[in-house]
């Protein structure tokens, strides 16, 4: 009986690994292409002599991107925007998601509906722009942070994950004399680490990748984030001679290098968050 179960598990395991490996390969190949072609010399693009791995490697594309002083500035700006923005996001979102996950809270359903409604209907860019102007937020990162302080989608999903916290835990804390705020910060938040890690990375990525907000609300060129900087380098004005920096001719590699520069930091930080949503968090926290 037991051995049959074990052999069934073995088949299951093999199937899981096989499928996951195949899926990973289909994703990996285009990614390798992006990375490798960012290192390919222009001539190999022209002669189309490589498919996945170039014959020669060159850092020209990266030199093209990184040689200007503004790169460091833009990179730093992006860091500030992302870290500040994500902090505000998480604070605002968790503080709203937690109360909304309480089934006993009067008015909860109405609030939830109002949140969901904003996912479907939006007044567009112009009214928001006017409001940001009226609030005096123009040309400051406050505009970027506050206008995107909560994503209704993430809020709703986070609320669903919060509603999994066993009510007994809170009751126990209540009996120990904890107020709602303390329960929230000391008990609820640590319990939903997987959800926190997930949405931190989601928000972080959203800030890191956004550029149109900055074009809209930021006028000072020295405050522009990395995405705006890269985009502008990649726009080929047909009258500018093939976009040339320091005798390095623009080549498709530059576009690929821009992607690499953008996504590599995100790939590096991912494992730090990953460990949280791979672990069962309730282990040991519910005592019978």
């Amino acid at each position, binding site marked *: 009986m037991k051995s049959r179960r074990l052999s069934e598990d073995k088949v299951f395991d093999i199937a899981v690994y096989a499928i996951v490996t195949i899926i990973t390969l289909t994703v990996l190949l285009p990614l390798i292409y992006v990375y490798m072609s960012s290192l390919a010399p222009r001539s190999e693009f022209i002669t189309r002599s490589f498919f996945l791995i170039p014959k020669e490697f060159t850092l020209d594309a990266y030199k093209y991107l990184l040689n200007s002083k503004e790169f460091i500035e833009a990179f730093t700006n992006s860091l500030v925007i992302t870290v500040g923005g994500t902090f505000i996001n998480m604070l605002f979102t968790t503080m709203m998601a937690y109360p909304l996950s309480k089934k006993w809270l009067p008015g909860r359903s109405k609030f939830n509906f109002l949140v969901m409604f904003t996912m479907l209907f939006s007044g567009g860019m112009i*009214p928001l722009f006017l409001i940001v102007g009226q609030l005096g937020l123009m040309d400051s990162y406050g505009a970027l942070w506050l206008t995107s302080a909560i994503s209704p989608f993430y809020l709703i999903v986070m609320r669903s994950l919060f509603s999994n916290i066993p009510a007994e835990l809170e009751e126990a804390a209540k009996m120990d004399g904890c107020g709602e705020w303390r329960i929230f910060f000391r008990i609820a938040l640590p319990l939903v680490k997987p959800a926190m890690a997930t949405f931190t990375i989601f928000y972080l990525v959203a800030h890191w990748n956004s550029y149109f907000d900055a074009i809209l609300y930021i006028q000072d060129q020295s405050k522009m984030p990395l995405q705006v900087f890269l985009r502008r380098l990649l726009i080929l004005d047909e009258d500018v001679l093939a976009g040339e920096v320091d005798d390095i001719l623009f080549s498709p590699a530059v576009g690929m290098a821009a992607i690499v520069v953008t996504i590599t930091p995100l790939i590096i930080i991912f494992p730090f968050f990953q460990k949280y949503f791979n672990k069962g968090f309730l282990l040991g926290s519910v005592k019978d």
Partner: protein
Amino acid sequence: MKRQLIFLIFVLFLAVGCSQNGDTSENDKDGNTANANESGNSDLAPYDFSEHLTISFLTTGSPIQDEDNAIFDYIEEKFNITMEWEYYDRDNFGEYFNTLVASGNVPDVWRFGYNDPREYIDWAERDVLYDVKPLLADYPELEAGIPTEAWEMLNPDGHYYGVPEYRLQTRNMLAIRQDWLDHLGLDVPDTIEDFYEVAYAFAHDDPNQTGQDDTTGFSAVGLFDDVSGTAWRGGAFGLARDWKEIDGELVPYQAQREELEDYIAFMRKAYEEDVLDKDFMLHSDWRDANNLLSSSVVGIEYVNPNSVHRKEAADIKEHDPDASFAYFAPPAGPDGERTTPTRPSYYKKVINANISEEKVRRILALFEWNITEGYDITRHGLEDIHWEEAEDGTIEVLDKWEEDDPGAIGTNILRAWNPLHRAYWWLGEDFADDLASYYEMNETYFWESDDPGLISDTNLQTGAQLNAEFEQILTEVVVGKRELSDVQVAVDQWLANGGEQIIKEMNEQYKQ
């Protein structure tokens, strides 16, 4: 549910109430248009730069280093101004600009051209743009330095709502692989039949001598691309660029059934015989097709004379060190017609109608300087900073040129009125001469629409969709999914679904 809705309505009500206080842009507009229109005959001195002004300028492209930029410093000092440069993303210009307008943040000067020309007419009618004509008498060299047709382009009689910017209308020219021709013992084609023969040989007779079937004849940007598509192909068959006057009536190319049939039959044959790039309908930009020339897949394509020597002509040498190009006139159609891609030239720098006359004068003085004594500064830069004269009299470019980028300033911001504005001294006189001769050749085959900028409302609303469906059917004919006789179906559908109305509206206006 009901309560939620009531709450919602309440919130919306609140929103509308609040915003009424917020919207002030309207008042600005009414208050200022009045003085803009009366400004013509005041007695401000044209070159009085005593008061310091701040001017905001919205342009496109990559931002140019503006701290410690010797060129910007020079301009700011000379005109006693502080320039605030803003850059927009061309892709989102419409959306971006609408937002600026709605919030009353319109810049002092911006470059018009990457949006629809009809928008210019619309803006001019609403007094959004400053009419510079009354002031031009004080800036005679500015007025004289730009052809009158360019000043008048898009403008109603007696008004100039913008300062024209140079755009070469017939820039691109055809390049053909001379080495391939030599290998095959062929000549540069002259007529469209020669052209087909050469293209056929390029596709089938191994012109690059690799022993492989790795080349094809020519590519295209869809069938009817505005800028490059139909130019020599369709134009040679007598198709209109857009509208053609036939017996006093304006006829659109979509209704030229016989000419269409000739053109489509030509493309269909080319596709069937593997002479035409099989991906032609995927290309949306001239560069997509042009890349095939660089990668040695096709042997004939348009190139930009400004940069061909460093781009395509250099690229093909990667495939074969002996590779070279010949440049040639558009092939002649059965009736001897030749046409070249022709772009519109309505690009202008426009000035916000709501700014003070003093500011406008300062801007005009700057523009005048830019096409006269400043012309060399916004291209080559300043002597001994950006370039220096060697002992033998030749000019050498210095490192700072790259950094301050006068080339980009002269192209993206203060574009002067000169077709050879990118023929820098250090590229040599031969380069400038070659360029001039290419441009001269291209101008001969100018290909323009016969309609004088008329607007049909039906065309505005449904034209693009009708064209998409029209091209769908004809592309299917070309790739053999339909019979050649279905050209008639494409024409009939276009006419029935709104084309007839468009023709009617256009001709009613044309006859007036």
